[in-house]
């Protein structure tokens, strides 16, 4: 069991003929993902490694039944790609590129709120249901099918956490990064709701970061709506206040979104907070043993 993507998910790669796009579509295919189409305006009719390329997402949807778009176009073009995907009725957008202007994401999110489409990202590492479907950058061999859902603001660190879980023999139902930008599509709450409802998920790992208040809000949500055990880790315990850590990522200022406030909120919601990936994995093992 899993959330959002599974072995039947049909994916179109927006930007497939770029170096980045063709490389990653190959990796996803190697993992077993049904990459059924690619899109590059002006390259319709060609193919990349046997995958048919179209001029528009609408055509990829029409002709190949694609329902999920992985966005791998350069950052300045992401807004257009996402609007196209929403307008033509795609179910899910996985927006993988970093460096998307925040204003573009704000408008994108406004548009998404008028539709039923879900967006993961931007600046997301993607989503993986181990053994079934990878839409993103995750190193597949690090993952193992199993009962733990992982949701993260960080990309690479979430791979490390998954790797630690796998090292302990603990598999994952679905792992995804909601994206490291100031504004993201799906929220922690959206994903927690789905993990809570998913029969295949027995425990949840939530990886947060300093800055903003997404973790505080997630903690309040967990207290009210999540009965499954949750383990968390917050990155940036030692980051100095007022400094921006990473492209458009974490920034703390003035008591909002500090490490301490996040840890306090989570602990109050009954969520233990680990300090390292290894510690988090061991906490999950413990939690699963108890259940």
């Amino acid at each position, binding site marked *: 069991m899993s959330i959002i993507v599974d072995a039947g998910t049909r994916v179109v790669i927006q930007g497939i003929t770029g170096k980045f796009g063709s*490389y*990653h579509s190959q990796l996803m295919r190697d993992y077993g993902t049904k990459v059924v189409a690619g899109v590059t305006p002006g390259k319709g009719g060609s193919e990349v490694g046997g995958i048919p390329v179209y001029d528009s997402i609408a055509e990829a949807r029409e002709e190949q039944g694609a329902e999920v778009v992985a966005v791998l176009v350069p950052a300045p073009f992401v807004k257009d790609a996402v609007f196209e995907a929403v307008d033509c009725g795609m179910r899910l957008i996985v927006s993988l590129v*970093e*460096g998307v*202007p*925040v*204003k*573009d*994401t*704000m*408008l994108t*999110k*406004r548009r998404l*709120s008028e539709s039923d489409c879900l967006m993961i990202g931007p600046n997301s*590492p993607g989503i993986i249901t181990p053994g079934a479907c990878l839409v*993103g950058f*995750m*190193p*597949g*061999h690090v993952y193992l099918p199993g009962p733990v859902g992982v949701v*993260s*603001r*960080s*990309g*690479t*660190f*979430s*791979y*490390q956490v998954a*790797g630690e879980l796998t090292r302990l023999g603990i598999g994952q139902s679905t792992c995804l990064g909601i994206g*490291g930008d*100031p*504004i993201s599509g799906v*929220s*922690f*709450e959206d994903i927690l709701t789905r993990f809570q409802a998913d029969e295949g998920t027995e425990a949840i790992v939530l*990886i947060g*970061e*300093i800055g*903003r208040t997404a973790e505080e809000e997630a903690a309040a949500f967990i207290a009210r709506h999540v009965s499954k055990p949750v383990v968390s*880790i917050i*990155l*940036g*315990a*030692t*980051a*100095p206040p007022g*400094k*921006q*850590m*990473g*492209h*458009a*990522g*974490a920034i703390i200022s*003035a008591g909002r979104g500090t490490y301490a406030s996040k840890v306090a909120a989570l602990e109050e919601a009954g969520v233990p907070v680990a*300090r*390292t*990936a*290894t510690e988090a994995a061991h906490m999950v093992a413990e939690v699963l043993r108890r259940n």
Partner: protein
Amino acid sequence: MKMLEYQAKRLLAEYGVPVPKGVVCRAEGEVAAAWQTLVEPGALGAAPQNLVLKAQVPSGKRGKGGGILVARSAAEAREAVTRLLASEVCGFPVPEVLAEQQLPGGRELYLSVLTGTAPSNPRPVVMLSAEGGMEIEDLAREFPDSINAVRVDPAYGLLPYQARGLARRAGLDATAQAQLVQIIAAAYRAYWESDAELVEINPLTLLPTGGLVALDAKVTIDNAARHRHPELEGARIDSVETRAAALGLSYVELEGDIGLISNGAGLTMATMDHLALLGGRPANFLDTGERVLRGGIPDGLGLLLANPAVRVVLINIFGGGVRCDVIAERIVEAVRALPVGHIPIVASLHGRNDAVGQEMLQQAALPRVTVLPTIEEALREAVRLSREPAPEEGSGR
């Protein structure tokens, strides 16, 4: 990208926000002309004319840091500029000084437009406080009731009724209130059209003569949107951070001695946190982001080795899309290209193709590079090395 005060004021003035008359001085010789332009015509009537000289550094605390001086004569002005240009304010050198007419004091307001990031409904937020002249954090603590905010629907922009609603609560007379409505609208347009993250006017001062003027201003532009704003190119600040940004890297200088290169902001923070747990002190935050393959390793090494505080470099990469064997190649190339030096490097490579990558690094047998199988071991080794006494090798820095 944080604009300097004069750059921010120039931008706001283009949108119609009143700012004091000012001239930027980059050398002592430019002060006399500034004095003449700003003071001698007696632009503000018969009142004795002073000049305010402000060090142009990206810090909100430069007043306390000695970065703002007042001059009552051309000679004083020259002296002040000379002093500022030669000094360091809040840790920054001072390449430019903004000379401005000193305006008579008056009531101070606070106005800002920033990107609200509430997950469910992120929108621009316009904040106005009838108190100003102090940091918003202090305002929020001391005069919480003085702050009013409206959220703007990005599909339609700020509406006049919203600006009026804010302005009404500032307790101004009708004329100043009408001017405030215009200033709010102008600040919003400047924010939206420049892809700003923050436009802050503080203080927005009510002169005794009745007009409102932006005495200080801060504007931060979204780095990701810089390609849309060639007109703002001149507004970059030169610093290690911006030099790193120009290379596509996120760099923040810290106080410690372990130079850190990692890929991804989260992983970099996690590594910093873990180092601290083990008793280590990172000298910086350096996130290659997706440039881990495109110059991220050699550029990052270059930046770190230029920092005299760095005693050991830790490279902690977790390959997702990128393959560790390719990263290993890049590390080998980069290290071989370095001048012979005594700074040890500890490398931790995990993720896609990690076994191959680790093996390649081992095989390369670089004398200064240690490769360790787990992240924790690598971190421990870096901390250990950071505590060793500096070697006495011949090659200096």
